[in-house]
């Protein structure tokens, strides 16, 4: 399996037990995850996110076969173009994670669109975590809502040639993003981390509505246990070949592996 939704390093508001490369690999081994796209958890709250990318690059370097480093870039902060180039040329990163609510910008702001276009021009995957934590448990210091689906849809339209992965989302079927024939460019995938495979079975609905190539495996480790996502995939009522695509095939295509 390939996990498009993984992190390294400390998070400001809760201890992550498996925040080191060794720890993350232990979780991955336990859940039989071969490779993971990892970004810095610290960069979510660092003012200068690039410092988190530097820490991540050093931590992941000895494990490049399994830990695929992903930049966190903030288009509202000075020097993101330089940071993008360094992350690409020096750190070998091939994906970016955007935190518009934590970093206080809109996905449709001109600088964000410029960042997405610059990353897409380098062939990067653009990943957007809809949330980091359940809002009900956020610290008294912050009030960070989920990323709005209409705002995401506007960015998808604005950048049809970019490729996006939406992480830690649910309830897509109640929005434009999860509907069949929704008029949006088919330039995005969604991960299974927080969706259901039972009862309402949102994952199954999205496989039907968007196509089996549009759903990917993601866990949220080490914020989350990896096993809930594994269980979702286990009980998902789709043919084995579709499960293989969700588990790894779609991610390989997106990351050019």
């Amino acid at each position, binding site marked *: 399996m390939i996990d498009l939704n993984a992190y390294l390093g400390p998070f400001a508001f*809760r*201890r*992550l*037990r*498996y925040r080191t490369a060794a720890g993350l690999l232990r*979780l991955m081994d*336990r*859940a039989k995850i071969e490779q993971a796209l990892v970004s810095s958890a610290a960069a979510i709250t660092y003012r200068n996110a690039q410092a988190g990318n530097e820490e991540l690059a050093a931590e992941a370097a000895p494990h490049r076969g399994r830990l695929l480093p992903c930049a966190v870039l903030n288009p509202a902060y000075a020097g993101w173009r330089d940071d993008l180039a360094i992350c690409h040329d020096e750190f070998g990163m091939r994906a970016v994670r955007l935190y518009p609510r934590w970093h206080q910008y809109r996905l449709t702001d001109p600088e964000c669109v410029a960042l997405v276009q610059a990353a897409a021009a380098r062939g990067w995957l653009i990943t957007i975590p809809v949330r980091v934590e*359940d*809002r*009900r*448990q*956020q*610290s*008294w210091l912050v*009030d960070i809502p989920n990323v709005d689906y209409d705002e995401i849809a506007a960015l998808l339209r604005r950048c049809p040639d970019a490729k996006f992965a939406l992480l830690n989302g649910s309830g897509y079927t109640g929005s434009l993003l999860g509907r069949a024939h929704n008029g949006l460019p088919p330039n995005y995938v969604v991960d299974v*981390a*927080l969706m*259901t*495979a*039972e*009862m309402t079975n949102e994952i199954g609905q999205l496989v039907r509505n968007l196509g089996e190539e549009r759903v990917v495996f993601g866990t*949220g*480790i*080490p*914020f*989350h*246990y*990896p*096993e*809930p*996502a*594994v*269980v*979702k995939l286990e*009980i998902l009522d789709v043919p084995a070949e579709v499960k293989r695509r969700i588990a790894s095939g779609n991610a390989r295509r997106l990351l050019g592996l």
Partner: protein
Amino acid sequence: MVDQAMPRSISISRRALLAAPAAAAAAAAPSWPAGVEVIDAHSHLAHRANPRWAEDDRALVDAADKLGIAQLACSILPAERAATPDVFRQCNDWVADGMRRFPGRILGYAFVNPGFVREAAAEVRRCVEQRGFIGVKLYNTYFADEPVLNPLAELCVELRVPLLHHAGRPSWLSPPQPRISDGSHLSALAARYPELMLICAHICGGGDWEWQIKALRRAPSVYLDLAGSVADEGVVEMAARILGADRLLFACDLSMTASVGRIRGAELPEADKRKILGQNFARILARRGTR
């Protein structure tokens, strides 16, 4: 302590509960530790204002089959949580019907509004003594430590059934549930009635779970149900470390894959997982002999 002996007689409906759970459930989820019958200590059947209630109930049991969950302890909550007696009786009638439709699979909690003191007590007696319900479910109409709950707490002690209480510690920014109970409210009720089998609901249901676990540390009679959609790594291990595995109950509150995955992933001895998955709740049910 409360008398833990089995009651001398068990009603017909309670005998039905003793029927072997569906073979389909026992055959599923080979990853569970051997020798444990998994019980979901906190679930819900669908309210019948939902036109798809029958399909949704079926889907719940089907999901339990897939995940190796033998039994689901269910209540039905009305939209108006400050329910009148007519409303909570109807919800409980629907639960009783669910117990008949899925024999051996559905265990019933009686949902009542403690503000209707006499009617709530009568309804709990009707459900437990005549219909084989296994416990009482309370929501957020009152804090758990408000005196209005005392008669129900005393009745649960008398009937030897657990009291499952809605709980959470949401951040101050969250939409308000003005009377949601947290671990401190439940601890206060437990201190008043140490023989009460009090269950704090859904530690993974949103809110600061670290706060909740710490608040329950010194309330040794309070059980903690592990239900909810939040899949935060380490929650089960922290609960086991601070409260002890004997106080933890596997539960889903309809978030079934998250809840199953948390237990599967938790780094605990197999013996502790067996306790959490079913043995602890079976011990609670044995107090009255409902299982």
